[in-house]
């Protein structure tokens, strides 16, 4: 067959058009951009307050708490009490199992509305995590970088609110050891449990 230039041009042109067409088809699938421009919102669970639980509830079922200063503005501290067992009145049921720490390791005898660091610097109750960080530095470093304490809500802060824990959300400051718990039910697979003989089950 003779070599016909017009046909060659047609073939090349159709190939090019096919390629362009395929590329434009591929570009039709749009992906959503990450981030909707929402303002980041962070909720912290377990914020500490300078209040104590009285053990009673009000008419609406809310826990009744009183400020530490309600009593400690009137009473003198019972020095040198190291542990609640040494106290004569109040705080009797408090169990403290936190290494070698004593009451005044954290609590500020000069102002019971605040806490204090090891060097005596005053720390407000909402910043109680700074006390934990004095000894538990690696855990605090991990926490600040999201590797400790978890995250609920949105991994992308621009797309929705986030909720995080403070140390006290999981660790009771007086007895911080994480308590053992029973796990929820595990898998009940066919090869783990006895098969139930019924007409619908058929032959397994």
């Amino acid at each position, binding site marked *: 067959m003779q070599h016909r230039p017009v046909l060659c041009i047609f073939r090349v042109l159709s190939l090019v058009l096919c390629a362009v067409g395929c590329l434009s088809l591929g570009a039709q699938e749009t992906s959503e951009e990450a981030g909707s421009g929402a303002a980041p919102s962070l909720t912290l669970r377990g914020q500490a307050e300078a209040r104590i639980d009285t053990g009673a509830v009000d008419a609406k079922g809310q826990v009744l708490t009183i400020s530490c200063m309600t009593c400690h503005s009137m009473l003198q501290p019972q020095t040198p009490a190291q542990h609640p067992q040494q106290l004569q009145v109040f705080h009797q049921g408090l169990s403290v199992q936190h290494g070698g720490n004593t009451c005044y390791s954290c609590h500020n005898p000069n102002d019971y509305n605040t806490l204090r660091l090891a060097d005596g610097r005053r720390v407000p109750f909402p910043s109680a995590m700074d006390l934990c960080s004095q000894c538990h530095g690696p855990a605090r470093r991990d926490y600040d970088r999201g590797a400790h304490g978890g995250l609920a809500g949105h991994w992308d802060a621009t797309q929705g609110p986030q909720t995080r824990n403070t140390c006290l959300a999981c660790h009771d400051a007086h007895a911080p050891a994480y308590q053992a718990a029973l796990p929820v039910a*595990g898998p009940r697979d066919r090869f783990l449990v006895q098969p139930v003989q019924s007409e619908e089950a058929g032959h397994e």
Partner: protein
Amino acid sequence: MNNINRRDVLRGAAGLFGAGAFAAALAPLAQWRPEQSVEDFLRQHYKALNAEELAAICRRVEAETKRKHGVDVQVSALQPQTGVHYAYALNLSICIGCRLCAQACHTENNHDRPSNNSYIRVIELDKGSINLASGNTTYDHPVPAEGKYYMPVQCHHCRDAPCTKVCPCEATWQEEDGLVVVDYNWCIGCRYCEVACPYQARRFNWQEPEVPAEEINPQQGYLSNRLRPAGVMEKCTFCAHRVRQGQVPACQEACPTGARVFGNLADPNSDIRWVLDNKRVFILKEDLQTHPRFFYFFDT
């Protein structure tokens, strides 16, 4: 008529009998109702669908769910976000084996109730080794137990996934953001992927999952937690219907100890990147070179 002999009569009787048997065999066709609509049968592969076709399919799934279970659901087909590559890390120093992640997966993903199915399986192992063969998944004592540690295992969404390679009809593939997904309407149920997965992450539906109507999670994704039929494969999707909107997966939301860290590998300021750069990280079955997106780490 006078030349009819014994052979002709026998032939005629046998022919009549054969015709009758053929008609009886075809009789069930009269009651046959196709499970799929014609549109579903003629549709293209998921990756070839445009937005309208995908939306129409989601509406059909919603209508089918309403017809079968009487529940109104919203089935979304969220596309991957640009510049996002998911990864998940799990802190073995902190996991206590409570299985709340497995339970959250169970309720979020509309799993079969009688078998308490979940995409996550928590393995109790002896400290000092990773001997998966001697691990226990059915422990029932207070946790954490002395001398044990706990390793939840789910789909790792491997970057070089063996499961997607063996699928004969490409019902499972890896998306741009890293999620390995399954189109339940495309899967033929051959279970090759279940055999190929080295982490036993895949689940097969021998029967249709039983979920009470009032417990069905109505926020569903076409590729993730919609109600699956019998005879198809399924697995963890990192809660695609959640993470593609910026939410954390249900397992991380439920973890009480904060052992789980999910995030975007492409974001240099993300928590997951810090974990991978600063913690003692390892992956399961590294010798198989699956390059998973699920990492385990220790604090010390």
